[in-house]
């Protein structure tokens, strides 16, 4: 049986240190050649930042890690975007995601969540490798829909720290059509709803990997955000999150449950027609006024509001034991 693990030795006790047991355990540094590499239709270059920050509505700043739009081409000019810069490709394209990591300082991967490539290109450290140097993830975009990419090294920490970005596959018709034969849309929004436990945001990249109690079994969030914007106040009006549209237009909301806790998103009196979830067309579209979602699910929702108004969207974050609401992020759909 094919077993890629036999080719690698884990890196143990790498030093570094920090809380808990200290050191680095159970990571698998490597950057092999990409099997069956071909000339891609589209290429993304991603580097790492671990010195970002997000200022919350209460004035506090929280450390954020993420991926830069870096490397060749110079497009986008680096910077520390949160969420990380989105990827947008067309169904049928072969994609290269070049990830460059300075393994002397830290290790990371990219897992394209919902994308289903070969083992080497799936970006899960203990099934293949944690990138040390530059690795080219090669995959083919087979199904239109909404995905996201995130780091899969010490994931419990790295995804919480913000190491994720949007990933959209358009059908051959291009943006404006959700999937071939499916609905069109005039206005588009991506809502990645996430919760932040700021007590986790001051740790080393390898925290807990050798053991020790880092508190990673218990997430107690104090901030609730939508697509990198504080959902306490800012997301109500931030033009990157809140939607402004006219009656007669069709809105596509790509909702990503980007946190760890269950969520319940309510559309403020509007009804969503969900056509696609997790990048797969539903046999029959379903109408929903609210959606209960678990970590990493995606729902592609079409809205066709007929009455002008301000519709307040609330995303409740639920305690995973009791189901009680532990926090809420808010935004708006403004219909003229």
């Amino acid at each position, binding site marked *: *049986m*094919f*077993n*890629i693990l036999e080719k*690698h*030795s*884990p890196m*143990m006790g790498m030093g570094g240190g920090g809380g*808990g047991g200290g050191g680095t355990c*159970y990571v*698998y540094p490597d950057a092999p050649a990409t*099997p*069956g590499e071909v000339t891609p239709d589209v290429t993304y270059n991603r580097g790492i930042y671990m010195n970002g920050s997000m200022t919350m509505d209460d004035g506090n700043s929280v450390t954020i890690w993420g991926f830069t739009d870096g490397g060749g081409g110079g497009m986008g000019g680096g910077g520390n975007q949160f969420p990380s810069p989105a990827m947008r490709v067309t169904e049928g394209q072969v994609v290269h995601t070049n990830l460059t990591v300075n393994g002397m300082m830290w290790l990371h991967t990219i897992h394209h*969540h*919902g994308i*289903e*490539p*070969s*083992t080497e*290109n*799936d970006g*899960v450290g*203990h*099934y293949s490798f944690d990138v040390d140097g530059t690795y080219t993830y090669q*995959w*083919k*975009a*087979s199904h239109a829909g909404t995905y996201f990419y995130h780091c899969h090294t*010490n*994931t*419990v*920490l790295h*995804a*919480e720290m913000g190491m994720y970005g949007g990933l959209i596959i358009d059908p051959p018709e291009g943006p404006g059509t959700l999937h071939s034969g499916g609905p069109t849309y005039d206005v588009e929004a991506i809502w990645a709803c996430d919760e932040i436990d700021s007590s986790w945001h001051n740790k080393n990249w390898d925290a*807990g*990997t050798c*053991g*020790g*109690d*880092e*508190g*990673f*079994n*218990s997430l107690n969030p104090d901030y609730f955000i939508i697509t990198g914007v504080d959902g306490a106040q800012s997301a109500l009006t931030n033009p990157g999150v809140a939607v402004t549209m006219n009656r007669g237009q069709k809105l596509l909301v790509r909702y990503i*449950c980007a946190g*760890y*806790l269950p969520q319940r998103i309510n559309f403020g009196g509007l009804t969503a027609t969900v056509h696609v979830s*997790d*990048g*797969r067309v*539903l046999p029959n579209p379903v109408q929903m006024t609210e959606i*209960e*979602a*678990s*970590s*990493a699910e995606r729902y592609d929702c079409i809205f066709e509001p007929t009455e002008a108004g301000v519709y307040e969207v609330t995303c409740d974050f*639920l305690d*995973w*034991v009791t*189901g009680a609401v532990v926090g809420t992020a808010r935004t708006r759909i403004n219909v003229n």
Partner: protein
Amino acid sequence: MNKRMDRRNFLKFSSAGIASALLGSSGLLSWSPRAHAATISQTFYITEGFITQPDDVDVYFKGFSTDTNSLTVPGAQLIAQEGDTVKVTIVNTLGTSHSFKIDGVVDSGAIGGGQTKTVEFTVNNAGSYLYYDGLNAPYNRLVGLHGALAVMPSGSSNELYDGSPTFVQQYFWVINDIDPAWHDRIRRRRTPNTPFTPSYFTINGRSMRVPGHPDYANPAIDSGYALDTRLEGSIGDRTLVRILNAGQCMHSVHFHANHVEWLARNGQPRADVWKKDTVLLPNNIGSLDVIYPFEVPPDSWPPAPTGHYPMHFHDEMTQTAGGGLYQFGIATTIAFK
């Protein structure tokens, strides 16, 4: 006093002890349909002891065990078909009262310390069921007294329910969340008095190990290799996975390499079968039934018919043990052979 009631030393087990008691040579739930109903008999011994967790901490459990000298958590996987009679004998070796219950199907009532009771019941509806101790709820269930029963449609070997999408092999994944402080209170016959804060997360009683760990690839300990959790198949080996949540946390079940066909939630067939890479698992005896199709991973280029991938929960707290040790939680391997 029955001498069983004042044992001075609890049994202590690594999860290796569990495996030998639980299964034979194959982890698959095997089944041959019959033309006529039959009686399925099973004896459980309620025992207690400690199970070593990935960070070497010993945590107290009780189980529906296969003999008096083992601790089986979860209890043995049972399978029957519609119309069958299931006859379960419970031998309570402990000093506390326990019960055997399946919601909507059977409830033994209290079985006192040192007592034995047999219950017989008919299973009439195909599906996936959790059997558990309904006393002292939810504590006795959480501390390990639970297991899985599959009821097949009458005469069928490849459906979840009559007319469902078909499969060629099937597995049970029984999920639990473990708060050692609660387990210790239960051991001391006290009621837990702290908020439920699980720090170990198990699938069929085990957690994941990874390369470099001494227990990596040990099927008795590593849930990535345990015969009853690891999905193995070749292209086309459509696999039914019956996921039962004995624990108190809602979870997010995430499959790599293939989307699953989502057939049922909490025992209710869904009107439409959706293809999903991630599904919400309800808590407190919630369930999901899904088919993992073992198709060539659709985004692989060049197409990759072999390989191996994780199934892991995406509420990433579940991927830890003792508050750290990422990768040592609820996960298993999906091997494309």
